[in-house]
């Protein structure tokens, strides 16, 4: 977790140009809110539509995991989704205070009837780096980072539809 050159799940040393955090209850109805808020936040950048769509899928996976695995579908727990803009990249963190898991669980991958550990595979495909910090009984924090072409110049208004 502290290899140089690798993203740590701790806040970046570089100062964010803009950041936000949204706290939501662990209910599937709030998945759309998490996606919309993150996409709206990043609409200040000049992302292309497919990038925004990929970010939404990654957010969906991480928040679904918090609901399903972190909290075992308990509906009254809090999930924190934060997003930040840095000069050359963007960052999303999803955190729960739930069950957590050990490396073994993760290696084991999915356990559902119909799923097979696709969540992290999609997060890794759509973001440039995914770092996971989890401890059984303490919760899970997933930090995802995506490089943004060229320097980012925030200032575009955040649009009403995203």
């Amino acid at each position, binding site marked *: 977790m502290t290899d140089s050159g690798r993203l740590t799940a701790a806040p970046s040393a570089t100062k964010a140009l803009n950041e936000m955090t949204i706290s939501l209850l662990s209910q599937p109805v709030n998945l759309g809110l998490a996606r919309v808020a993150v996409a709206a936040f990043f609409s200040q950048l000049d992302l292309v539509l497919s990038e925004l769509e990929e970010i939404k899928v990654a957010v969906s996976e991480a928040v679904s995991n918090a609901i399903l695995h972190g909290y075992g579908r308990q509906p009254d727990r809090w999930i924190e989704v934060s997003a930040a803009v840095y000069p050359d990249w963007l960052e999303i963190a999803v955190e729960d205070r739930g069950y957590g898991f050990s490396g073994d669980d993760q290696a084991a991958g999915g356990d559902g009837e119909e*799923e097979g550990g696709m969540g992290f595979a999609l997060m890794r495909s759509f973001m440039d780096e995914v770092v996971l910090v989890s401890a059984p009984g303490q919760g899970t924090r997933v930090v995802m980072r995506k490089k943004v072409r060229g320097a980012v110049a925030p200032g575009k208004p955040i649009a009403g539809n995203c």
Partner: protein
Amino acid sequence: MILQLEDKGRSLVARLNGEIDLQVADALRTALDRAMGEKGTRNLVLNLSSVSLIDSSGLGVILGRYRRLLQNGGRVGLVGPGPTVKRVLELSGLLRIMREYASEGEALAGLEPGDGNGGRGDDR
């Protein structure tokens, strides 16, 4: 999510809409299974052209229906995914086991060749 279903002989056409995630997965699964059960569906055509997002919960529903139908020799055809939905289908390997068709008509013809020969015709 709005789901529109149309019965086409031994195939069921399901037109999905919106964001297919954990929030709608249960309802989608139930609706598809009920319709497939009532109609004795052999093949399922999923029209994804109005799907704006699909994540692994949505993939799970598709994969589950695929496995169910496969037991009776049936298959699933996919129609019209947008670029990012298609990427998700590719990355998940779903497009290695299910075929994408250019239209509902082609999917129906491909899945049920000869219209009633039992659906055993190939569509490689």
